[in-house]
């Protein structure tokens, strides 16, 4: 307990430096993307001004999180999780609709998006459940409970509708895999995703033929081991069935806007005016950067407001244009360093709770980073999902700040965990 006063020494300062680096570069990008020479606008009516306040409040949050006893998070994780679920459900009654999604509570001039806070709550709940000595991830019973914990918030978020935020919950598969989930689940998921994408590009008949040829080749290769014909036939028909059903779902269940988003990324359609406008403008802005970029506040695409939602989901395109290849690669490396550092620290944790939580933080950040930047660079369909610490928005910033700093607090406290 005598080390309590020395928490500042035990903090992982590298993580904190990385965090602030990202927040500051993010704010500069927001400033550039929303900067207007119209001086009649007050600071508060412009995103960069509001983001400054959000950052200020984040620092207050950080101090608060670090001063709370580490055990609090583990002990109250269930309650936090439940509050979070309730806040999500409450949206159906009290929610405020912004650009089509009922994902916000409005308080005066500010709005709060509870789905941003549900991530850390779910992480805490998952860590708590997995760290219970009675929990066995290999038992089907527990596995179902785990899936309920993970996917309950996602299920509430999807119909808001905010599929992007819900998609993030898939990140928890990485955590489960680390904690002993059979790789079959990951493999199945990956195969299904690959088949899904292939089906969109190719005709289901061609997919079926490819699957059949592959199955025959594998069977012939392994025939000395007497493989089960039944297994092969099952897998093959599953593949074929999935391919045809994906095709059916895509054509009949998806709405045109969803189909468009996929088609553009897959290169099946070239469209720079309509739905593909966002992606095309974003690519142009990034491409405009060259080696060293146009310089801060000098981006022509940024100033012209060509990229829609540039201060939120497309914030990375500002970095690309104004800081160029060197600057944007640096930001990518910052994210990679942050996530790897979290993973590294998570592996060092002595308590399972801290480790699972750290792993969840890393997986969530990774998913956001992967999907957001892939989307901005035109290699992933347009999914509304922010870039952590970067994108404009109080809820997002606070959600990620809490997510990260609870881990930093747990990490700083690990020597007390005996």
């Amino acid at each position: 307990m005598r080390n309590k006063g020395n928490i500042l020494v035990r903090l992982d300062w590298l993580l904190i430096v990385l965090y602030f680096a990202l927040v500051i570069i993010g704010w500069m990008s927001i400033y550039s993307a929303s900067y207007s020479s119209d001086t009649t606008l007050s600071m508060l009516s412009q995103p960069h001004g509001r983001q400054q306040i959000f950052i200020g409040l984040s620092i207050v949050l950080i101090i608060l999180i670090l001063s709370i006893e580490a055990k609090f998070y583990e002990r109250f994780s269930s309650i936090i999780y439940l509050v979070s679920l309730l806040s999500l459900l409450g949206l159906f009654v009290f929610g405020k609709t912004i650009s089509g999604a009922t994902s916000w509570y409005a308080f005066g001039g500010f709005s709060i998006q509870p789905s941003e806070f549900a991530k850390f709550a779910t992480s805490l709940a998952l860590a708590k459940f997995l760290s219970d000595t009675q929990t066995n991830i290999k038992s089907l019973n527990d596995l179902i409970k785990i899936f309920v914990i993970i996917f309950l918030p996602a299920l509430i978020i999807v119909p808001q509708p905010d599929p992007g935020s819900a998609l993030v919950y898939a990140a928890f598969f990485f955590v489960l895999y680390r904690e002993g989930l059979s790789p079959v689940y990951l493999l199945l998921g990956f195969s299904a995703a690959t088949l899904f994408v292939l089906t969109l590009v190719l005709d289901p008949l061609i997919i079926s033929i490819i699957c059949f040829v592959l199955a025959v080749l594998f069977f012939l290769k392994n025939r000395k081991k007497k493989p089960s014909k039944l297994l092969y036939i099952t897998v093959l028909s599953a593949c074929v069935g999935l391919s045809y059903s994906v095709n059916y779902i895509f054509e009949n269940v998806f709405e045109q806007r969803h189909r468009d988003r996929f088609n553009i990324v897959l290169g099946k359609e070239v469209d720079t005016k309509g739905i593909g406008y966002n992606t095309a403008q974003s690519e142009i802005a990034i491409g405009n950067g060259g080696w060293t970029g146009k310089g801060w506040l000098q981006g022509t695409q940024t100033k012209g407001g060509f990229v829609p939602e540039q201060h939120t989901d497309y914030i990375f395109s500002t970095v690309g244009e104004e800081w160029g290849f060197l600057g944007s690669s640096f930001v990518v490396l910052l994210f990679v360093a942050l996530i790897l550092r979290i993973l590294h620290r998570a592996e060092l944790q002595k308590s399972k709770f801290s480790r699972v939580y750290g792993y969840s933080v890393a997986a969530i950040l990774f998913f956001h980073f992967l999907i957001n930047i892939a989307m901005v660079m035109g290699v992933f369909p347009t999914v509304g999902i922010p870039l952590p610490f970067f994108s404009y928005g109080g809820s997002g910033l606070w959600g990620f700040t809490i997510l990260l700093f609870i881990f930093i607090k747990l990490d700083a406290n690990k020597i007390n965990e005996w």
Partner: protein
Amino acid sequence: MRKALLYLLVILTGILFIGRLFYLQIYDDSFKLQSESNAYKRIKVYPERGHIYDRNGQLLVANQPSYDLMVIPRKVKPFDSLMLCELLSISKQDLIKKLEKARHYSPRLPSLVVGQMSKIEYASLQEKIRKFEGFYIQKRSTRDYQTTIGANVLGYIAEVTPQKVKENPYYQSGDLYGKSGVEKSYEEILRGVKGVKYLQKDKFNRDIGSYKQGALDTMPINGNDIKITIDAKLQEYGEALMVNKRGGIVAIEPSSGEILALVSAPSYNPGLLVGRQRSKNFTKLYLDTIARPLYDRGLQAQYPPGSPFKLLNALIGLEEGVINTTGRVTCRNGFHYGAKKPLGCHCSYGASNDLNKAIFASCNAYFGSTYKKIIDKYPNATIGLKHWSDHAKSFGLGNFLNNDLSVGSKGRIPDDKFYERWYGKNRVYSTFTISNAIGQGEVLTTPIQLANMTAAIANKGYYFTPHIIKEIKGEKIAKKYTTKRVTTISKEHFAPVIQGMFDVYEQPGGTGYRSRVKGIEICGKTGTAEVKGKINGVTTQLTDHSIFVAFAPKDNPKIALAVFVEHGYWGGRWAAPMASLMIEKYLKGKITRTDLETRMLTGSLQEEYDKYISGEPFTINK
């Protein structure tokens, strides 16, 4: 393995992202190009066009603001269309059509509704413009003519043609450039250099301020002012004299080749080609194929020079040594050379003329014989014609003067090659071409060439290429205008010819005797050139052109000029009095012979011109 998966994925993602960034930002530059085309706009900043002054520093052409009414269709709110139509004096249908067109072009970008409004129209509109939301007034600069004369000299500016834009990348659609006259020949000096301003555009293509804080912008460089050689007062007087006549007057300062006046009639007020009525006025001028006001008769019209050409033949005869100042030729009603009809003459029958009298009395027989002697001096007519034409060409005839006037004609001095093409090799004889002796036949000259020839005679054997530029601020005028062009005639042969020209005025039998001016020693030569014209496809003899060339004073000449009055009959009738008035005006500044002046100013040949197109039979030379 389980620990490593996420590590590997994070690292792999980082590598793939950096690879994708490299592709977008470094490898594939198509994104960069797209950005350039949509993120900023280059706009031209027009420099002030240079002013034009006359030789005495009188301002002729300046600039004035003109006002364009623009509209941004999207911003238009319901307005009182009747009031706007009244202010603009256009019909409602016109207004609706214009707004429709503007909307079609772009609802967000400005379009022109009415261009080049005058200050007065602007003033009344300006008061009410706030009532018409979506409309605004944009200032531009157009020419402001401080004078009503010299339209053919000054020329006009017009919007560039697509052809011009293709030829010269300096110009962009919508630019104005000098299309004729001085505006054309000194376009590059007058126009200045356009500046460029880069404007940052937003996604709606609207301007949102300067690009890179104006780091790439360049300031326009204003055009240079020029001073032209025209004497505005003399030009104005010449134009007044030519009212209701057709033809040209060209006056040159012999000691410099500077063009003092360049009159073409009929002309028009240069101010007509500015402002809202511009295109209407231009079409009217352009379509007038009978009077052809846009045709510069002083520079472009090729007439047979008539008798003034005899001066040249006298000089060539003297130079070639085939005549002298004392030799006489007896005139028996013209020059008889074997043809059925002699080259007629108006000398009294049996008059015995020496060179001096032959000039002042304009004896055809004398010059017919002189011409024949020149040609026949050589073994054959082809060689003779070559020598003869070389002499004539050394006076700047038969070819473009190669000067700074935007238009011109070659004229024609028929040479050996010309006749060989016509008659065949070795089948040319002097008598075939005898009309050349008196400036008829195949000889054609423009008024400016004739004025220049007169200047060369006044200078006794040299001239300076006639030019219109006097001074360019901060620049030297081209060297070719200050270089002497020497003729092939020796200096001593000019004195007797000049004396003959002097006696045109001074001897009672002289053709210009009645036009002499007290106190000024004028040397001149009348001309009466027969003309044939096509009327409804039939070649018809028309009333002769009245021609006069002159210079004054006799010693140290200050002005040389040529006057052509189409169908004015004999030289002494119109051209000679006009020439003398021009000289008096230039040298004395005022006119003493007011009766003559009034007759010339008010005299009209419109009746003469009208009868050719009336379709009725007519008589000529009345």
